[in-house]
């Protein structure tokens, strides 16, 4: 891998680092379009018939909020990073509904960082990715790992 190919390697995500991942205003049109394709439940599909559900109106599919977060992540850092994918997420919480017109701010915080024990050229980073609405309420919180190539394979990060 060309060492100058990417802006961000594993070393560039120290524990405690915070990063904004953009904002997105969810429109009724896109909430319904996503739901028609992937999550055809009444409270995601139609404002009229969503009114007499538990949610009292149209809300975005939780998966929709996740993929918009993913897009924000790609634009904020992932597309310019030496990321090799993710083994998964430890937790994903849909804390509050996202409604048409809500403007959601996405952000990332580095929780843990460690070199791969089996591959000296790789490192693992655990993030908290969350999303906050206009009222300052957290609507989504995800914790998971991403795998990155290291700028200096095998170097001891403790400097010993």
């Amino acid at each position, binding site marked *: 891998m060309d060492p100058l190919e990417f802006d961000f390697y594993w070393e560039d995500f120290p524990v405690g680092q915070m990063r904004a991942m953009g904002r997105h205003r969810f429109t009724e049109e896109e909430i319904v379009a996503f739901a028609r394709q992937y999550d*055809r439940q009444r409270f995601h599909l139609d404002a009229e018939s969503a009114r007499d559900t538990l949610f009292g109106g149209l809300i975005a599919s939780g998966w929709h909020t996740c993929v918009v977060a993913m897009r924000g992540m790609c634009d904020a850092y992932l597309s310019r990073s030496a990321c090799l994918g993710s083994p998964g997420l430890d*937790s994903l919480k849909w804390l509050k509904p996202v409604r048409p017109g809500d403007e959601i701010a996405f952000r990332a915080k580095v929780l843990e960082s460690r070199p791969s024990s089996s591959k000296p050229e790789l490192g693992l980073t655990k993030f908290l990715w969350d999303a906050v609405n206009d009222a300052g309420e957290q609507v989504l919180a995800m914790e998971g790992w991403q795998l990155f190539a290291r700028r200096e394979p095998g170097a001891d990060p403790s400097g010993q």
Partner: protein
Amino acid sequence: MSTPGTLYWEDFTPGEVVEIGRHTFTEEEIIAFAVQFDPQPFHTDPVAARGTFYGGLIASGWHTCAVGMRLMVQSYIGRAASAGSPGVENIRWLGPVRPGDTIAYRRVILETRPSGSRPGMGLVRSRSEALNQHGETVMTMEGWGMFRRRPAP
């Protein structure tokens, strides 16, 4: 009064295995999803993907999740008294999904309990599994769904 044909919380039994359905992922849809939501080269560009860790195009893990959701709604959530989900745990993308792969989804009911805070509701915890045509597990997750309880007759 309960609605005939509707699945209520009481209709979910721990240990029950539900075959959700299957889906063949095409190159075209893998790219279309990724261009919109997960534009990394190994999800969007078959040529560039060859030079990556994965050696070829693979579906976004979110795409595998979203298709699973669609099939779950078709299979049973669409006729259930569903009240959404507080979240999922332990999403594991265990193996890549490549163009032409047929993925079979199934769901195992792990436990059920009445909601502590909402009297008319119950919670169902289940594990979802996605397997490819070679029988390899490509994704698993565990999650809670909330359902209305069957109204008294």
